[in-house]
Each structure stands twice: as structure tokens, then as C-alpha cells.
């Protein structure tokens, strides 16, 4: 039983990071200066939302199984309060911190219609902090002996980083046109 829980925890951990990376990438696409438009944008944003909720479920299973299995000592408190676990305090704590941020992201997004836009936006920026934390947590723990699991995490990092570069670097075609017009010689 314990063994099943241990494997379930690792598997859902890798599934979570994969889904969360997809969520982050879809979010960055929407927030970029060259967002998908029209019907495609509806698909992207719809996926962003539903995958985020789905990933949270995987994350819950990942955490619940990590608490339940008894190979390593992780309890309910250290699943919520960062850096209190006796096992790999730093790396488990980083995962806990990431989970707390995910909780805040989900809560503010579900309550978005009742929050000032500023508050929601400020919290949503924290996504850029939680995602690398989750990645490091995944790379530092558990997956070290499994090339497939570790490879998946690394692939997530590569894909996410590429999307981040694009998010920062993509330019608005309208703005390009405006600066081109500005640079013209006036006759």
C-alpha cells in the first residue's frame, strides 16, 4: 500500500508539473503583446482556466499521497506551512510555497468578479514565481533515478522558458507599424 502511495505521489507530481506548465504557457500566450485572436483566443483562455482547475486536482492528490505514505515524514502542517518538513526541508518547503501560491491564484480567479482588478492582477503575477519553484522542487526531489520523469520536468522547463522569452519579446504589429510611420521622412 505504502509503495502504491509513493508511486502515485511521484506520478501525480510529474502530471501536475506538466499540466501547470501548459497552464502557464497558455496564460503567457494570452497576456503577450501578440495574443491569439478570435475563436483561437477563446480556446486558449478556456483551456487555461479548465486545465488550471484540473492541475489543481492532480496537485491535491500529489500532496495527499505524499502525506499518506510513510517512507518520508511529511505531515499536514508541512504541506501547508513552508519549510516545516523534516524530510528535505528546503525542497519540500519550496513545493509547499508553490502550492500556497497556487491556492491564492485559484481562489482569486474564482472570486475575480468580486475583487478589484488590481488585486486579482497582483496575485496573478505570482504565477511567475510559483512555476520555477515547482520545477526546482520537482528536479530536486524524487525524479532523480527516473530518466523519464526527470526528462519530463526538464522538457517542461524548456517549453516554459521558450514561452517566457516569446512573452517578453513578442512585439505588437500595430506598434511596429506606428514606429515605422514615425521614422518616416516628412515631406
Amino acid at each position, binding site marked *: 500500500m505504502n509503495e502504491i502511495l509513493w508511486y502515485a505521489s511521484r506520478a501525480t507530481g510529474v502530471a501536475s508539473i506538466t499540466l501547470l506548465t501548459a497552464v502557464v504557457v497558455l496564460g503567457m500566450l494570452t497576456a503577450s503583446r501578440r495574443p491569439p485572436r478570435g475563436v483561437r483566443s477563446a480556446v486558449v483562455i478556456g483551456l487555461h482556466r479548465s486545465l488550471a482547475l484540473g492541475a489543481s486536482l492532480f496537485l491535491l492528490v500529489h500532496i495527499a499521497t505524499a502525506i499518506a505514505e510513510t517512507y518520508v515524514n511529511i505531515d499536514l502542517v508541512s504541506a501547508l506551512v513552508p519549510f516545516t518538513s523534516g524530510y528535505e526541508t528546503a525542497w519540500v518547503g519550496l513545493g509547499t510555497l508553490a502550492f500556497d501560491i497556487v491556492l491564492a491564484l485559484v481562489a482569486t480567479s474564482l472570486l475575480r468578479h468580486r475583487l478589484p*482588478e488590481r488585486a486579482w492582477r497582483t496575485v496573478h503575477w505570482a504565477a511567475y514565481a510559483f512555476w520555477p519553484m515547482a520545477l526546482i522542487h520537482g528536479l530536486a526531489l524524487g525524479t532523480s533515478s527516473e530518466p523519464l520523469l526527470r526528462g519530463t520536468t526538464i522538457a517542461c522547463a524548456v517549453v516554459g522558458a521558450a514561452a517566457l522569452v516569446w512573452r517578453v519579446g513578442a512585439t505588437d504589429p500595430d506598434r511596429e507599424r506606428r514606429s515605422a510611420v514615425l521614422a518616416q521622412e516628412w515631406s
Partner: protein
Amino acid sequence: MSPRPAAPAVVVDRVACTGHGVCAGILEGAVTLDEWGYPIVHAGVEPDPSHVATAVTLCPARALLARRSS
């Protein structure tokens, strides 16, 4: 007097709208996009109320508002 035209099902906050076009993707027919990608709401087309709710939640700029059904 001619009857008043039906009020549109959704209103767009023109200042907040960033032209993502999510509304047009979900409320096909009731909302179309102009040549710049900004929404045109067609009064008289009644979209599915559940679609209206989805579109309002998914609008990234929070610029889409559902008309209160009286």
C-alpha cells in the same frame, strides 16, 4: 410608435476591452469582430444564457458584462 429594438445580451466596456475576441468565439452570431478585432454586439440575437456566463468569465480583460435579465 415602432417597438423598441431588443436590448443586446451583453455590453462591452470599450475602455477595458483589449480585443482578444473571446466573446466573439463563444457568442457566435451575437458578437462579431470588426476589422480591428474589436467586438460588435448585435442586438436582437439572443445567445444561450449559459454561453453568456462563460464569455463573461473568460473575457481576459474583464470587459464583457451581461445585461441583467429583468
